[in-house]
């Protein structure tokens, strides 16, 4: 167990390191931040001054090493745009994104698990086909398009929900739906496929041969085994939701990490971009780790003997 944890942690570190290096060099090699920082109307001397001020004139590898040392010391650097600590900035935006990510995940699970189970039980019936159509259509609609339609209906038409902001729970309703519905099909398919497979498993026949009730067979014996892969997918998808919230956060002016990232990208505020990308990758690795733990807890075959 401890070995496993340390191995995973080492992997997380290695992944984070690689991601940070890739993003650092990509961001740095492809443009001159000094010009971006100097802003409209800056003259060459202004740019030179900025370059010197931020140490951008030194070799890239040196800059990376320095940055890495800083990060290891717990300092993510200073935002070039906001001129405040990146760590504080990111921490400030994190809650909104976390709330959005988790609520979308829950929303996705809430609609996909029952649908998936029903589709599997009533395989090849209209229920199955309905569930499948929902999934297929859901995956086909671009989520920004869907989000805008939600706005048209619920904010402008019905005036039930506020368009933008992050002040109250109402602000999260549409973003949650817009983001969650997009990942729901993946879950639904997984649950359905898992249930179909599990329902034809020998141990389900055993359970039925024992004379157990249909409900107990489905809920206790089948679902329990079918949701195991859902857990790891949830972990992965949560990572995706955190990263994929860029579009949705921009549309709903939800002031979270995704939006921060988008802004930092357009403003070439690369320490922030870098930090967000790295944070998300660490999240991803940690989440998969958590997913494995939960899986192990659900599936005794993996559990510690």
């Amino acid at each position: 167990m401890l070995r496993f944890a340390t191995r995973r942690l080492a992997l997380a570190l290695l992944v984070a390191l690689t991601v940070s290096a890739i993003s650092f060099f990509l961001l740095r090699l492809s443009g001159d931040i000094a010009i971006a920082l100097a802003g409209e109307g800056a003259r060459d001397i202004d740019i030179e001054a900025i370059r010197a001020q931020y140490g951008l004139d030194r070799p890239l590898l040196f800059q990376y090493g320095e940055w890495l040392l800083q990060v290891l010391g717990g300092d993510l650097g200073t935002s070039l745009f906001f001129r405040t600590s990146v760590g504080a900035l990111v921490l400030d935006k994190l809650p909104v994104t976390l709330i959005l990510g988790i609520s979308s995940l829950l929303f996705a699970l809430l609609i996909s698990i029952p649908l998936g189970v029903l589709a599997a039980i009533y395989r090849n019936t209209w229920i199955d086909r309905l569930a499948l159509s929902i999934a297929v259509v859901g995956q086909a609609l671009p989520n920004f398009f869907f989000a805008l339609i939600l706005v048209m209906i619920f904010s402008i038409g019905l005036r039930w929900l506020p368009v933008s902001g992050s002040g109250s729970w109402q602000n999260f309703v549409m973003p949650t739906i817009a983001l969650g519905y997009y990942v729901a099909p993946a879950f639904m398919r997984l649950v359905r496929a898992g249930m179909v497979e599990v329902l034809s498993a020998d141990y389900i026949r055993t359970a039925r041969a024992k004379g157990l009730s249909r409900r107990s067979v489905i809920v206790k014996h089948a679902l329990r085994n079918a949701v195991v892969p859902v857990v790891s997918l949830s972990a992965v998808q949560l990572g995706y939701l955190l990263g994929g919230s860029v579009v949705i956060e921009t549309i709903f002016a939800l002031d979270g990490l995704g939006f921060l990232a988008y802004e930092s990208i357009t403003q070439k505020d690369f320490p922030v971009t870098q930090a967000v990308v790295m944070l998300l990758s660490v999240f991803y690795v940690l989440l998969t780790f958590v997913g494995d733990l939960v899986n192990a807890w659900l599936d005794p075959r993996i559990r510690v003997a």
Partner: protein
Amino acid sequence: DQANNSIRFAYDQAPESIDPYFNNVRIGVIIGQHVWDTLVYRDPSSNEYKGLLAESWERIDDRTLEFKLRQGVTFHNGEAFNADDVVYTLNFVADPENGVTTQQNVAWIDRAEKVDDYTVRVISKEVFPAAIEYLSGPLAIHPNEYYEEVGPEGMDRNPVGTGPFKVVSNEPGKAIVLEKNEAYFEGSPKEQGPIETVDIRIIPDRQTQVAEMLSQGMDFVMHVPKDQAEQMEQVPFLQVVSGETMRIVFMQMNTLENSPAPALKDERVRKAIMHAIDRETIASEIVGAGARVLDVICFPSQTGCDASAAPTYDYDPEKSRALLAEAGYGDGLALDIVAYRERNQTEAIIGYLKAVGIDARLNFLQYAAMREQIRAGEAELTHQTWGSFSVNDVSASTPVYFKFEADDITRNPEVRDLLQKGDTTIEPEARNAAYRDALALIAEHVYGVPLWSLPVYYVATSDLDFTAYPDEMPRFWEMDWKD
């Protein structure tokens, strides 16, 4: 909203810092003008300079201006305003070490000197006719003691000025709340109206802003594109006001020796481009009300922007094609065009160029990336805009692109010399003549394609009473609710 006398204002971009010296976006200028005061105020209707923190001023010599300061003014934190504040602020920002974002606004200042508690002198490095203009715009005065203590960062976190509004809350990148400064001094040309609070929310997506207006979640937005603004005009509870701004739109053409598009070195090709674009139609159909077709690359109200000697070019695709053929490009010509905003305008230009056989491939970039290309001499055609920092003087516009500065990709020494002469001459007649000749020369050789001025559309709840000015500055202090 009207009920609690507050205005909810959505803007699409966050300022890097609230300290007006450390941002270069419009919203920063707007906040700056509300929270701080400058020495001088230019009346937006009459363009007349009035005393603000200074009561009067006089020119001591070519490089020196002396200001008599207003007494009895206090900063939001209670600090009294006097000459030390002015001297400290101007000397601080003039020092390149301190890294003020827009150096152009401050680089002309040599130093500020205290004469007595309420008299200061501002000395420019060279002869600088536009000094008053700058002092009435971007050069806000900070409280010296506080600023010395907290620096630009502290100023961003807890801004303190003398202005008609004070910042009561600031969530970077998200929202800024301004509240009326009850202790604002009497007799300011920025006369205070009834608005109690201004609730500024950063909403990056234009459609979200429109949606907020349509669902009455916001009271005031600006920079609304023409088409949407016109459509919102149909909505009963919204009003749309448009106004011209100082922002000019133009195209640059790389005529340098090593231009990646040698065709542009041919004056006939440049003239062909000039004739190919139906600027009138684009201006009226796409740019919108208040847009004015320009003949030279500066804003007409700017001092020295005299187009009277410049030749004009009309929309004439036939002539354009003929010129191209004459230059040897009858079979077509492919050019790259870089742009960074107003994409639909660029698209329209590309459409017109296509019609005469010029295939312009768009390279739409972030501003910084675009400028990097231009300065590296890699750009061919550019589609640019320039706001002159709302400085109403030609020295803030034309010379930037034609005086051999980094952004100059035509480099005609004659033009440079004329501009230099204009920049350093105090005597208005002679100054004007120099600029006029320079502008004529540029237009004659088509070193750039002047296009139009950008209007700005403001959309507001219909019961808000406000005026739009060409300097793109909504003045919340003078707004009011209609009954």
